[in-house]
């Protein structure tokens, strides 16, 4: 593992040690965040899958019902029948925070509380098949709305998990080993300097002793 380009000084050693402590702490926190996000995401993904399957099955049935309705009455009558809408839907968008991920909450408001308002046409010229088709679609709507919220949340969370996972891995496999290596390098270098200093002093002492002995020999 490559070490960082630093001056091998005591001051640098202290600052690298501080960095290592921060990196370790960040790594632990991010790992916890990732695990918790993952847990919540898995629950959400399962729910998302079952909702989607339910919606797809229901919508396929709806499509069949509408095909039947279209077959049993003249096309223009059906088209004009659906032209005017009695029901209107509004959504209140809120935001929820899941482990630092902002996710939407969608609160649906029907404009008209009367459930019969989904039939905006006169019952006189339209066939009963159309009523069945519209009813089946209206029954599917809550599933579709729940799915929209769940799916969006799941997608936002998966992006966040990916980001967190990358950070955890970068810390674990690059940053922390790099700093450890740097600390090792600095302390070895410092030790080396220490030893070389020691030896130099010993040598100097020897030389001085030698000299002193020389003087003694001359003076004697």
């Amino acid at each position, binding site marked *: 593992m490559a070490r960082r380009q630093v001056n091998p000084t005591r001051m640098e050693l202290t600052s690298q040690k501080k960095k290592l402590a921060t990196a370790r702490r960040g790594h632990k926190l991010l790992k916890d965040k990732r695990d918790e996000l993952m847990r919540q995401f898995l629950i959400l993904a399962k729910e998302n899958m079952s909702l989607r399957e339910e919606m797809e099955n229901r919508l396929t049935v709806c499509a069949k019902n*509408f095909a039947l309705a279209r077959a049993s009455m003249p096309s223009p009558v059906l088209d004009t029948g659906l032209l005017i809408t*009695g029901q209107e839907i509004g959504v209140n*968008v809120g935001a929820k925070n899941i482990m630092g991920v902002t996710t939407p909450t969608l609160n649906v408001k029907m404009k008209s509380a009367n459930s019969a308002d989904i039939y905006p046409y006169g019952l006189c010229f339209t066939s009963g098949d159309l009523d069945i088709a519209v009813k089946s679609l209206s029954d599917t709507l809550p599933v579709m709305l729940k799915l929209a919220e769940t*799916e969006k949340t799941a997608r936002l969370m*998966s992006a966040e998990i990916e980001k967190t996972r990358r950070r955890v891995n970068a810390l674990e496999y690059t940053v922390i080993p790099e700093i450890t290596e740097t600390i090792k390098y600095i302390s070895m270098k410092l030790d080396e300097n220490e030893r070389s200093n020691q030896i130099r002093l010993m040598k100097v002492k020897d030389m001085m002793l030698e000299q002193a002995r020389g003087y003694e020999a001359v003076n004697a």
Partner: protein
Amino acid sequence: MSRIAVMGDRESVYGFAAVGLDVIPVQENDEAGRLLRKLAESDYAIIYMTERVYHYLHNEIAKYEDALTPAIVPIPGVSGTSGLGVAMIKKSVERAIGSDILFGGKSNA
């Protein structure tokens, strides 16, 4: 108060008008992309889209992936489902976890 739109071929989406959604019939052409941008800029919280249009517009849709709204949700058209929606859930699980450990065993996609 935000609204909900349904985009797709006329056959697949006309029924949604009755239950109060805004129906926007589109073909798979440049017009669809322009309409999507217009919808996303105005106050639409959810945009349902038939799988074929979704597939055609996936480059445009990617721009709204990280935004809070609109939530763009693929729905099956009259011709039934192509498995796009399920495949997308699997992809997001794969993106988050690294491999599809949840639905890997299911073969219905």
